[in-house]
């Protein structure tokens, strides 16, 4: 091969782009893909989300952690416009998401999964996958009845889907109804389906919840694989071991607010985080790994 012609590719793992970023909540980052500013959402008297400022660095794996009811899912919904904030601005790739319908957000290249898996059970695994592809000519009603307008594109999409299914080791279930899959397989399917959108940013809400340990490891590897392909990942997780293993940066939420940020190693020593998880009268060092709900 012609190794000499091409300069070595500087991968992002060569040096940590967040090296010089302070370990504090709401800190600015060198190359944010997603920015939320002054985002609030109340349910009746309860302020579920109250985020002053947060930035997600491009090309990294960021974990969003926090006790149950901290507002993580609600914050996900606000970022993707599945819910409307009372106040606040969200920007993706420098483009404002305010007043953007949820489906458009996905078309911008920002795709999310759900805490309660939404595999479409009466559709086959392959149909689930093909649904994820954007820009399909055959999805317009007028073109739909004329297969020659879209069948070639459809075949290409099917090939891409088959490739992804193979990568996720689901290729033996292509023709099965998604409703027959186990909980863990559905999580995998939902993630693979999200990748059919060819997103820049993948947002996973508790991807490991209810997944057996064997599948967990492969899910972790897939998430690392997304980063290797240049995607940005933001994921919600409870299991601190998982967070330590794959994330480059951790954001901690409690009672709707961002209370801490930093590299994973810094988080378990952070006083504010310990207080949030255990109440403020706790002084022993914390092993968050024991705190899976």
């Amino acid at each position, binding site marked *: 091969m012609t190794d000499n012609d091409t300069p070595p590719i500087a991968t992002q793992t060569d040096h940590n782009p967040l090296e010089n970023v302070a370990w504090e909540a709401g800190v600015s980052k060198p190359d944010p893909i997603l920015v939320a500013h002054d985002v609030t959402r109340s349910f009746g008297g309860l302020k579920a989300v109250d985020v002053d400022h947060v930035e997600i660095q491009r090309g990294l794996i960021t974990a969003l952690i926090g006790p149950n009811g901290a507002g993580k899912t609600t914050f996900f919904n606000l970022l993707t416009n599945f819910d409307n904030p009372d106040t606040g601005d969200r920007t993706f790739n420098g483009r404002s998401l305010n007043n953007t319908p949820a489906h458009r957000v996905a078309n911008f290249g920002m795709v999310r999964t759900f805490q309660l898996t939404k595999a479409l059970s009466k559709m086959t695994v392959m149909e689930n996958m093909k*649904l994820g592809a954007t820009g399909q000519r055959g999805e317009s009603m007028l073109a739909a009845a004329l297969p020659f307008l879209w069948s070639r594109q459809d075949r290409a999409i099917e090939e891409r889907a088959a490739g992804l299914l193979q990568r996720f080791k689901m290729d033996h279930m292509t023709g099965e109804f998604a409703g027959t899959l186990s909980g863990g397989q559905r999580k995998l399917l939902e993630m693979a389906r999200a990748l059919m959108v060819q997103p820049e940013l993948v947002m996973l809400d508790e991807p490991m919840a209810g997944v057996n340990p064997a599948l967990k490891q492969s899910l972790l590897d897939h998430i690392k694989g997304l980063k290797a392909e240049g995607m940005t990942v933001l994921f919600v997780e409870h299991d601190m071991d998982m967070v330590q293993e794959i994330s480059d940066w951790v954001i901690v939420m409690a009672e709707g607010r961002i209370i801490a940020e930093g590299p994973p190693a810094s988080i378990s020593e952070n006083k504010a985080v310990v207080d949030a998880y255990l109440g403020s009268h706790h002084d022993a060092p914390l092993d968050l790994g024991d705190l899976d709900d």
Partner: protein
Amino acid sequence: MDWGSIIENTVRGLIGEQAIYFALAALGLNIHFGFTGLLNFGQAVFMAAGAYGLAMTVASEEPHDLILFTIGDGNGFWLGIFMGVIVFPVILALILGIPTLRLRADYLAMVTIATAEIFRLVARTPALDDWTGSSDGLTGFASTFYDWSPFEPRQRYFFNLFQGNQMWVFIIGWITVAIVAFILWLLIRSPWGRVLKAIREDEDAARSLGKNAYAYKMQALILGGVVGAIGGTLRAIGTQSAQPDNFITDVTFFAWVAVILGGAGKVFGPIIGSMLLWATLAFADTFLREGVDAGWVPDWLITGTQVGQVRFMLVGLGLVFLAWRRPQGIFGNKEEMALDDR
């Protein structure tokens, strides 16, 4: 007992005009409910839109003169078809859909059932006599259709089942059903149909993958409405009248029965469902009548005038039996249905 007439009437029910009109109404409803999950409890009003779109354009006092003035006498019928099959149902679907399709599914159900009744009652209003013919309805708009008929009106055709004009409706009707079903079959197996199925199961999943669920639901509502309106237009042509009471709530429920009998979510199910519904009604009707006349059914149980009601009770019983033994309908897939429970 005259088995000949029982069989003749049953076959006429199976393939006759009613089966055609309601096959179309049910095909449209199946787009709404079977494929997209929209709860439309007013399919009768889409049929009415088809009937009145044609009838008002051609035969009512008010817009009539203006239309003739604009397009010339001979073209009224074709404009009427266009109004009945496209303009009226599309406008109706927009009116029904814009306020409700962003909300939970039950809002569309309420609005459709109410709109169907409102339309019927407004059409009956004497004040609108010049427009809708009020409770008498409108007639005399279908002559162009029968002018094209190759059949002798007074002669009987097809094993003596149909008179000439009926035969012409029969032919054109089934051709229409076949074309519509073929187009729907193409649509449903396309990526567009895939999005509809996704919306039926979980709208948020579809939205998270970049599909504009609202726009797709609107398209489905319009398409199913147009198909129902085609049924209504044909019915107006077949009966040569458009009358408010042809579109009572029962009409909607006949369409639902056809969908459920055939199996919701299967393209050809509603056609078979409609045929079986009308065959069963015709069979029960003739059989009971013959039975009463022959003295086999005692007078204290059913009299001749009660037969009309009793046959619906029998169809109801049949549906209960179906729901018990085969809830997915005749063509439905049991495995697919079982996935609901997971």
